[in-house]
Structures are given as C-alpha cells and as structure tokens.
C-alpha cells in the first residue's frame, strides 16, 4: 500500500511511519501541514491517506478540510482521519463525500499496532472504519428513534459493530458469538429498520451508517 501521512506531532508521525513500514507498506510522504497534505494527495494519489484532523497553520480542522476537498477532486480517495477526540459532525461531513473508503478513529487506537494497520487496510480497500465512540454518539443522537428503540440489546451491539465497519466475522469475534448468530441478528436489524437486505458486507455497513447519520 502506498500511504500519505499527515500528522504534526513529530513523535507520532515517526511512530506511524515506522509501524507502516514494519508491516511492509510504503509511506510516500509524511507531511505536517494542511496545504502540504492537499498537495501530496492531489499529486501522489496514494492508496490511502492517514490524516490528523487538527493541523497547522490554523490548528483547527485543517486536515478534515483538506481530506474533504481532495475527495471531491479525486472521488473515492480512501482517507482515514485521526483525531484526539471524535465529533459526530465531522463524521457527517466526511460521510457526505461518499461513504466508501473512509475512516474516522481516535488517535489513541494507534497504540494497538496490528489492529490499527488492519483498520488502514480496510479503508484502503474501500471499506469503512468508524470509531466505537463515533458510533455510540450517533446512536445516542437517535435514541428516540422508534425502529432503533425496538432493537434488542444484543441487536444493538451488533448494529454498533456493523456501523464501525466490521464484517460478520469481525463482529462475531468481538462479541464472542458465532457468525451464524451474527447473520441472524443482521437480518432482524435490517428488517426492523426497514433497510433493503444485501449480501455485500460493505453495502450493509453503508446502509447502517446512512441510517444513523440521517
């Protein structure tokens, strides 16, 4: 995988670069400001961009804005946003650029190296990765939604895993249940929420995210 990395803290930039290289990925550029990031994204066309939301020069949402702009110029450009905190509004804006190949996770997820690399790979392959915190905030924001309220606690757990971008296998693993059980829950969830059933795992994730972000 060819990766562009944008992160203004030297230690973290260095650490993630090494991590990526250790897993056999190529870091095309590791930049530390918004304008440099945009330039790198548009000229190098990486397989995936790993971007810190808060970057110089404004130290506000420079990274997000660069990523959103780049995705309008290069549709489907996979972007994984990293942030010290998660903000549902930012997730919403990122989702508005198309929901394939995006990710938004807390910076501290870097500490689990293998998991973090798996997340990047998922996004690069056109999948989705939402931090559990983003998902739980989206779900809280919909807690008065009737179809959502009709889910059983287990179904809700499965829904949250789906929204994070996990496959059936990933969901089964993280909830300690069988894949068959997951498939059954997924069927029920889609029926209760009135979503069109789909065989493709990715399509299902998108449907759930679109529902939560509505």
């Amino acid at each position, binding site marked *: 995988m060819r990766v562009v990395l944008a992160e203004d803290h030297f230690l973290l930039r260095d650490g993630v670069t090494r991590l990526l290289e250790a897993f056999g990925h190529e870091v095309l550029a590791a930049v530390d400001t918004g304008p440099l990031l945009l330039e790198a994204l548009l000229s190098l066309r990486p397989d995936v961009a790993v971007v810190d939301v*808060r970057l110089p020069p404004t130290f*506000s*949402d420079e990274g997000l*804005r660069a990523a959103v702009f780049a995705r309008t110029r290069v549709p489907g450009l996979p972007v994984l946003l990293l942030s*010290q*905190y998660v*903000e*549902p*509004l930012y997730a*919403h*804006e990122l989702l508005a650029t198309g929901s394939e190949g995006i990710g938004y996770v*807390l910076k*501290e997820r870097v*500490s*689990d190296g293998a998991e973090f690399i798996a997340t990047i790979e998922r996004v690069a392959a056109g999948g989705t990765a939402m931090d559990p915190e983003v998902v739980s*905030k*989206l779900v*809280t*924001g*919909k*807690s*008065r939604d009737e179809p959502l309220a009709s889910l059983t606690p287990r179904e809700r757990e499965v829904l949250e895993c789906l929204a994070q971008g996990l496959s059936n296998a990933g969901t089964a693993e993280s909830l300690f249940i069988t894949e068959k059980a997951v498939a059954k829950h997924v069927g029920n969830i889609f029926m209760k929420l009135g979503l069109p059933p789909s065989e493709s795992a990715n399509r299902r994730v998108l449907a759930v995210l679109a529902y939560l972000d509505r």
Partner: protein
Amino acid sequence: MNTTRQAEGAAPPPVSGPTAFRRTLTLWGLAHRAFFVSLWCVMVSSVLRGPLGVKLLPGTERRVRALADRQRELAARWSGVEVPAVYAELPATGRARGKALRSQLLDKGNQVHRDWRWVHIDWFAGGAIAAGPVLLGLTGVWGLWTASIGTELPREWDSVWFLFVPVGDPDTAFLAGALGVLCLLLAVFWAPRRTLRLHARYLRLVLAPSESELLAARVEHLRTTRSDAVDTQMSEIRRIERDLHDGAQARLVAMGMTLNAAEHLLATDPEAVRDLLVEARQSSTAALKELRDLVKGIHPPILADRGLADAVRSLAMISPLRTEVVVDLPARPEPPVESAVYFAVSELLTNAAKHSGAERCWIDLRYERGSLRVSVTDDGQGGADVRAGTGTGLRGVERRLAHFDGVLAVNSPPGGPTLMTLELPCVLSSPKTTSS
C-alpha cells in the same frame, strides 16, 4: 438588583393614523385603570404604619408594578422609548416583604416610590395626554353637528358656538362644518402619533430613575456578577484539579506501578508480563478518555475549531431529541461569549431531553441589534421554572449568562410547549468560519 439597561431602542415601524389612534385609546384606558389603582394606593397608604398596611402592601405593589411594566413595554414597543427601571431585591413573601416594601416606598430614590408617585399622577396627566386625539375628534363631531342643525335651532337658544364661530346662518354653518372636518382629520391622521411620542416622553420623565441611580444600580449589578464570576471560576478550577487528580493522574500512577512490576517479572515470568502490559495499555486508554472528557468540559474542541454555529449543530446531533437548528450569524462572537452560550444551550438541551418528555426540539440562533439571541423550543409537557427546585440547572445558566449581561427567559406553561430564550449583548468580530 434587577436592572433594565437604558438603551435607545430602534425606532418602531411606522404605523397608520387609525392604528395610532387606537393605541392612544388603549393608553387612555390604562389611565382609567391607574385611577382605581391610585385610589386603592391612597387607602393602603393611610394604614401604612399598621400591620394591615404591611399585609396589603405586597399585593398592591404587584398591581402598581404590573401597570407600570405594561406602560414601559408599550412605550418601548410603540415609540421606541426605553424607560429603565431599577427594582431592589425583595424578600420572597410574607411580612418581611411587606416591611421591606414599606421602607422602599418611603425612600424617595426608590423605584417603588417612583411607581406609586406615577400612579397618582398618571390618571390625570397620562390620561390628559392620551385623551388628546379623542377630544379633538369629539370637537370635530360637535362642529359637524352644529353645522347640520345650528341654523334651525329655535331662536331662544340665541346662537350655538363652535370654537370661535357663532353658528347662525349658512356661511357660519359651512365654516363650522369645515373646521369640524379638519379637527376629525387631525384627530385621526396627525395627532395620535405625536400623542404617543409625547406620552412616552412623559412616562420616562416621571418613571425613569436618574442617571446616578442607574449608574449605582449598574455598579451593584457588576459587583454581584463579578463576585459570582470569580466564585464560578474558582469552583471550576477546583473541579478540574479534582478530576485530574482522581482521574488521569491516578491512572498514570497505576500505569507506572504496573510497568514497574512488569520490569521485575521480565526475567522470571514473561507470561505475567504480557498481562501486565495489556493492563498498562488499558490504563492509558482510560486516562486518555478521561482527559478527553475533561477537555470537552473546559473548552469543547469543536467550539474552538468551528465556532458556535457548528458547535450547536453538533450538540443537536448527539441530543436524543429530534432537533432542528437554524443559524443566522454573520460572524463569530468573542470566545468567552461563544463558550457561555454553548454551555447554556447544552444545559437547556439536556434539560429538555431529561425532564420535558419532548420528542422534538428547535434551536434558533441569531444576531440582531447588537444581541445574540438563542431560542430553544420543545414540544414537551412544559412546567419548567428557573426558580423551582428542579431548575437548579436553569438557575446556573441564568447566573453564568449574567456575567455577560445576558438574560434567560423561560416560558413553559403546564402542558407545554416550552420556549426558552437567552439573549446577551455582544459584538461579532472574527470572520465567519463555518463550512456549509
């Protein structure tokens, strides 16, 4: 102290003559009411020294104040004349309130004294001003009447006079008629607007406190809100200190100990070391989460990044209520104002979600005439009260807004809906930076 700031309100929209005429009638009607209130006040004043006076004072004062408030409101709305009022704090109920009112009533520099003086004056002074157009109109009617029947009146009436015209023959009758029509026209199209302005100016002359009283009240208000602001800030700092001490700091200490243990076990028991390392990582995750929550409570990142509009949108997104947000902000307010309004809206939303039983909520955020105004409406069961026991959150919002001279108005009749409006004067400075 409750103060209404003296501000030259914007000129009200122009109105037609007949509308203004109706308004003078309303003012005249209020003057009639003032007459009865004035009579009652005289009676209460006569027993002021005794216990009966103390008992009657609160209710009477409430009536006087309601009448004065109505007049002040009309002056501001109809003529754009702000009539400030400075009421001193009073004990809530009972004898203490009556006694405090009595001493205020006897104090010439007090608003209660001024209100009562006004009520005694208004029924004739205010009434006389407000009656102007009506009297002019009646004069016009009298002119027309004399013009139509003046010439046919029996001789023994000698002659009928209209103003300076002795009506006796067709020429004088025509003159009287013409003057009558002129009076009517003046009464409807010329006089009412001037009367309204004059009445508002008279009201300010009689009811408004002097400049020095206003300043004194302002100083008192600033003194209270400043000490309040310092207290709030101090308790916030203590809370942050406590949160850091009990939260992130404790986690880091635990992490250090876990790592230390891992170091000692490294040679002898690598399996145990693995568990300890996992534990240390979990501690670091927990510490980070606590720090994140703490930062969010001090200064939410979205507010710093995007400003008030998007920060409020973000609040709406995570609120369990179905919330619609409408924003009309040409630029960003100062950061302290943004922060105060953000936390106020956050509290109002939480309140609505927790207590109102509402399904939907509407937030409207706009900047008008030098003030930032936010209204939060929900379709719940109402009954919210700043002063009620459950309303400590609202009370806190009110106090924190007061640091910026802001106010919170709660309109929440039993059965709903609830409308809460907060308004605070501010300037917009930083250029707009929101994405859309």
